[in-house]
C-alpha cells in the first residue's frame, strides 16, 4: 500500500510539472500585456518588460520561473492586483476560505446525497424515491450561480435570515448560503449515482444470500448494499471537485467571498499572469490530491484493489 501511494505521489508531481509548463505556455498566447496603460509610451513599456524579465526568451523565462517555484515556493509577483506583492502571499491568504467552503459543500452534498440515494435506492418506486429523484434532477439542472442568487434573494434579502454577502467576522454563519449553493449539484449527482448503483447491488446474488441468512433489512442495505455501491460512487468525487471549483468562481463573486475563485476572475480581467498561473496550478494540485485520496479510498473499501499481499 505504501509503495502504491509513493508511486502515485511521484506520478502526481510529474503531472503537476507538465501542468505548470502548459499553463506557462498558454499564457504566452493571451492578448494584451500587464502594462496595457494608454499613458505609457512604447519605450516605457519596454523598460517595464525588461524590469520584470518579460523580454527574455520563453524557455529561459520558464526555467527561472520553475526554479523559483520549486526552490522558494515563489510564483512571482503580482503585476496588477496588488502591485509588486508576492503572488504566493496573496493566494495563500485567500486559499483557506475557498478550501473551507469547498469542503463544507462537499461534505454537505455527499452526506445528503448518500442519505437520499440510500432512501431512493432501497425504497424504489415509493413517494420518497420520487421526491429524491425530483430533487436530484433539479439539482443537476440548476447551475450553482443561479441557486446562489435565488438563495441570497429569498433567504438573505426577503426574509433576512442570512446576510446577503460573506462576512469576514462571521466566517461560518455567512458561509452557509454559498455552501448550500455549491453543495446542491454534489448532492444531486451523488443521489442519482448511488440510487442506480444501490438498485443493482441489492439485486445481486450476494445480497440475496445475505437476505437468505435472515439478516434484518437495514443491515442488509447498509452493511452490504451501501458499501458495495460506494465503490462506484467514489469515482465521481473527482469530477465533483472540478464542479465545485468552477462553481466557486461565480459563487464567490455573488457572495463577495475573498477566496481564490474571485481572485482568479479578477486576475483574468487585468491580465495578472502570475496570479492566474498560481491559482490554476493550485486548482490542479487540489484535483490531483482528491484523485489520490479517491485511489486510496478504493483500497480501503474494496479489498480486491488492495495491491499489497495479505489483504
Amino acid at each position, binding site marked *: 500500500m505504501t509503495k502504491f501511494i509513493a508511486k502515485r505521489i511521484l506520478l502526481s508531481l510529474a503531472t503537476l510539472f507538465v501542468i505548470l509548463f502548459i499553463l506557462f505556455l498558454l499564457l504566452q498566447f493571451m492578448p494584451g500585456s500587464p502594462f496595457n496603460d494608454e499613458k505609457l509610451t512604447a519605450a516605457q513599456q519596454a523598460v517595464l518588460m525588461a524590469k520584470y524579465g518579460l523580454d527574455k526568451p520563453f524557455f529561459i523565462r520558464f526555467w527561472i520561473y520553475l526554479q523559483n517555484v520549486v526552490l522558494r515556493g515563489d510564483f512571482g509577483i503580482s503585476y496588477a492586483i496588488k502591485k509588486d506583492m508576492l503572488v504566493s502571499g496573496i493566494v495563500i491568504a485567500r486559499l483557506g476560505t475557498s478550501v473551507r467552503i469547498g469542503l463544507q459543500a462537499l461534505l454537505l452534498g455527499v452526506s445528503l446525497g448518500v442519505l437520499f440515494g440510500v432512501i431512493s435506492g432501497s425504497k424504489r418506486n415509493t413517494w420518497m424515491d420520487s421526491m429524491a429523484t425530483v430533487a436530484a434532477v433539479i439539482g443537476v439542472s440548476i447551475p450553482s450561480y443561479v441557486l446562489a442568487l435565488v438563495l441570497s434573494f429569498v433567504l438573505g434579502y426577503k426574509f433576512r435570515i442570512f446576510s446577503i454577502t460573506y462576512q469576514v467576522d462571521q466566517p461560518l454563519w455567512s458561509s452557509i448560503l454559498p455552501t448550500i449553493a455549491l453543495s446542491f449539484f454534489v448532492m444531486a449527482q451523488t443521489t442519482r449515482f448511488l440510487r442506480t448503483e444501490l438498485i443493482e447491488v441489492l439485486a445481486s446474488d450476494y445480497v440475496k*444470500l*445475505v437476505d*437468505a441468512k435472515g439478516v434484518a433489512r437495514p443491515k442488509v442495505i447498509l452493511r452490504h448494499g451501501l458499501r*458495495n455501491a460506494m465503490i462506484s460512487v467514489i469515482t465521481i468525487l473527482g469530477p465533483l471537485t472540478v464542479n465545485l471549483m468552477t462553481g466557486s468562481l461565480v459563487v464567490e463573486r455573488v457572495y463577495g467571498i475573498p477566496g481564490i475563485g474571485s481572485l482568479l476572475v479578477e486576475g483574468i480581467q487585468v491580465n495578472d499572469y502570475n496570479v492566474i498561473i498560481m491559482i490554476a496550478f493550485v486548482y490542479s494540485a487540489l484535483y490531483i490530491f482528491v484523485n489520490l485520496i479517491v485511489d486510496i479510498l478504493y483500497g480501503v473499501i474494496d479489498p*480486491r484493489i488492495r495491491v499489497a499481499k495479505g*489483504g
Partner: protein
Amino acid sequence: MKENRILEVNHLDLSFRLGNEVNHVIRDISFHLNQGETLAIVGESGSGKSVTTKAILGMIDDNGFLGKGEILFRTSRTGKEDEIVDLTKKDKKYMQKYVRGSKIAIIFQDPMTSLDPTMTIGKQIMESMLEHKKVASKKEAMAKTIQLLDLVGIEQPEKRVRQYPHQLSGGMRQRVVIAIALACEPDVLIADEPTTALDVTIQSQILELIKDLQKKTGVSIIFITHDLGVVANVADRVAVMYAGKIVEEGLASEIYYDPRHPYTWGLLSSIPSLDGQDEEIYSIPGTPPNLIDPPKGDAFAYRSEYALEIDFEEQPPMFQISDTHFAASWLLHPSAPKVDMPLVLAKRIAAFNERRSQE
C-alpha cells in the same frame, strides 16, 4: 402433518404479475420433506423449481403473489412441543427473524457471485450466527466459524477466515457458502443447483460433502437440479416438475428404475451413458409452454409422442403406483392403451438392473 415430516407443501399456487399479464408459474403443487432425507426436485429451466424454494423462504419478488395453498413447517422449540406453522401466513418480519438462515437455509447456484466481495469470509459466516443470537460473543462466533470451515473441508481455517472471497477458488467458495448455510444449524437445507456452476471434478466433491454433512448433522435437504444424473447418488426421493406442476414423484429407485411419466422418460433418456458409445444422446423436442396462458390439459402433451387425445383436453390426476410412487399421466388410467417406455431407456434400465443383481 405426519410425525416424520418436517415440511409439507399443499396445493401451492404462485403467480407473477408482468404488466397486465399474469404468469402462473406454480400450479397447484404438493410435496413433502421427511426428517433427515434428501428430496430432489428435478425439472428444466422455468419449470418453477427455484421459485418453489423462494416461496418456502418468503423471498418472492414484489410482483409475485401466492394463490391458495399452504406451506406447513415443523418448528422445533426448546423445551416445548414442536409447533406447526403455515409459512404462507407469516409476514416478512417473521420469515426474516425466525425462519430464514436459522431454520431453513439455502445454497445458491453460483459461488462466484454469492459472496460479498468486500467482506472477509469469516465475517460472512459469523453474520447469521450473530444476527440470530446463536452465539454469546464474537469470540465464540469466530471459534464456531473456524470449526465450520474445518467441517466443510477448508484447510487452514484460521488463516482463511481473514481472507476475502476473491482469494478463494470456486470450489472453496461453494464450501464457504455451505458453511454459511450451516452456521445456525438449520433444520432444512435447500441446495439450489449447488454444483451447476462448478467443474465436474469439484461437482462430485461438493455432492460428497453435502451427503457427508447430512450424515453428521441430520439436516433435511431439498436438492434442486435440472440434471437427474447429478442426484442419482444423493436423493432419497425425487419429484419431477414440469411447467409449474409435479408430474411424477417417488423413491429414487422408483424414479430411476420404474419411471412412468413420459417427461421423466425423456429426462432419463437424455442422460448420456458411459457404455453406450454408439447411441445418440436423446433430447426432448420443443420448449416448455408459456405459463401466462397455460395449456388446458397435460402441459407436456405438446412435446410428447405418447400423448393421448384426452391429454389435450383435461389435466391428468395423480395416479398412485405404489405407497410412495405417484405420476400424473393419463397413460396410467386403467382404460388407457398400453404404452411402453422408449426402447433405449428400457435397455438401459435392464442393464442397470443386471449390474445391480451381480453386485
